């Protein structure tokens, strides 16, 4: 095939869902520009694409480039990407705005992701528990969390695929190099739905309150290449340090000081290597499972590499 017919086929693929033209039609338009008017192929392509965009009443943005990547949920790590996705509707939520037709959670074996379907998109309704192949959805990001948006160019096709939806867990490992302030025995605001950590007995929202004790560690795992911030909740903190909430309270009572708890924890765990798995929220990994790495490392592979340089 010539460059011309390759390009024609590509353009045809881009528009096959939107425009009723054959590859030959496309090629004829290209050829006219390239051979008759001596327009460079790249420019001719742009021009022909614009023609079909006009015809379909689309913006270039809505076209999604030359064929979308088919992605899995865990691959979504950039906003404003046009992708295809096969996913199950895990949950439908109540839309909070009239502009939203449907909102909820999609999932595939690699994890879950929020989706929004605009009311004006005029698409068929998705049903909970069913799996769909979604063509041409656009990714979005808000505070480190990704979502996909269904729009008027999105294609929805129900498919018969069964899989278990994954849980979006990340695995990070490295040496625990820091336990940050706000770790150890802390107090949280007791107001309903407010779990803010108190600073000097004050909640930033509710002022001076009688706090409730909790255990938490904000730690940093570092593998020499990257740093990962990890949050350990009460259970994970106890599993990591061997210090439970009651013991921590007793330690603080004996010392008349809550900071002894974090100090003791630092001495126990800093400098050790851990592998942590859990979901990522913003910049933090929430530790669901923590494993101390204390098996003997194997120097053999590194030795072979060292000798080969």
């Amino acid at each position, binding site marked *: 095939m010539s460059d011309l017919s390759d390009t024609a086929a590509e353009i045809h693929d881009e528009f096959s869902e939107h425009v009723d033209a054959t590859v030959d039609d496309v090629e004829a338009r290209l050829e006219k520009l390239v051979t008759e008017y001596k327009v460079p192929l790249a420019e001719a392509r742009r021009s022909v694409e614009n023609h079909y965009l006009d015809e379909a009443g689309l913006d270039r943005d809505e076209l999604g480039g030359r064929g979308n990547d088919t992605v899995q949920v865990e691959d979504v790590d950039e906003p404003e990407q046009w992708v295809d996705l096969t996913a199950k509707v895990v949950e439908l939520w109540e839309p909070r705005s009239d502009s939203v037709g449907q909102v909820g959670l999609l999932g595939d074996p690699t994890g879950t992701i929020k989706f929004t379907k605009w009311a004006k998109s005029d698409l068929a309704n998705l049903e909970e528990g069913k799996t769909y192949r979604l063509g041409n959805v656009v990714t979005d990001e808000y505070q480190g969390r990704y979502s996909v948006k269904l729009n008027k160019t999105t294609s929805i096709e129900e498919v018969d695929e069964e899989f278990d939806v994954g849980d979006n867990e990340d695995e990070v490992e490295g*040496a625990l190099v820091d336990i940050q302030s706000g770790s150890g025995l802390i107090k949280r605001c007791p107001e309903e739905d407010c779990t803010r950590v108190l600073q000097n007995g004050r909640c930033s929202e509710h002022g001076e309150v009688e706090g409730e004790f909790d255990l938490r560690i904000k730690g940093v795992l*570092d593998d*020499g290449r990257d740093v990962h911030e990890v949050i350990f909740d009460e259970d994970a903190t106890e599993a990591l340090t061997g210090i439970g909430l009651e013991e921590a309270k007793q330690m603080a009572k004996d010392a008349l000081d809550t900071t002894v708890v974090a100090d003791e924890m630092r*001495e126990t765990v800093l400098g050790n*290597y851990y592998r942590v798995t859990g979901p990522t929220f913003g910049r933090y990994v929430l530790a669901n499972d923590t494993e101390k790495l204390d098996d003997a*490392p194997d120097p053999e592979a590194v030795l072979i590499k060292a000798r080969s340089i």
Partner: protein
Amino acid sequence: MSNAPTREVARRVFADEFNDAEFTFKESDDERAPLYALLPTGERANRVFVVGTLTETEDIGEDSEYWRGRVVDPTDTFFVYAGQYQPEAASALRDAETPTYVAVVGKPRTFETDDGSVNVSLRPESITTVDEATRDRWVVETAERTLERLDAFDDEGNEYAERAKAEYGEDVSAYRRAVLDALEDFDVQKTTESSSAAHQNS
């Protein structure tokens, strides 16, 4: 994203290379800009993580406590200094019973001696005692990271390798040898241990 400065990675570097990292620099004129030591294998280090044997501690302060600890790895010795501004690290050194394995997170610092030579030392953020398995893991990991730097040393556009070449020269074979020694040493140790275990079993 937040505007908080991103946390600096703790580099892995053996003592022989660390002690050669005499050249320090900042990336901007801001006085709060982080200070980096330039590693001879071509990386900048604002923070390092080291694990080794704490062999000696000494209070060398005159008016107030100022602790020096010697932390030994398979290649050389890290010098760790902690005074009143590093109270946790200072008390860790004060209370430590040597020899013991320690993990140190800290910042590279340099000072010029009376005879004009530059000494590189470590200002600790934390010092904790760890077990042998952690020390072993660090040795293998540090060998790996050092090899990665050596691998990339001649890559085009490797800014810190260019600077390292200008400051320290292009010969990095000593660091490769140190990696080999560290790993082989480690290998021999382990083999001896397992063969003596085999003897006991027979």
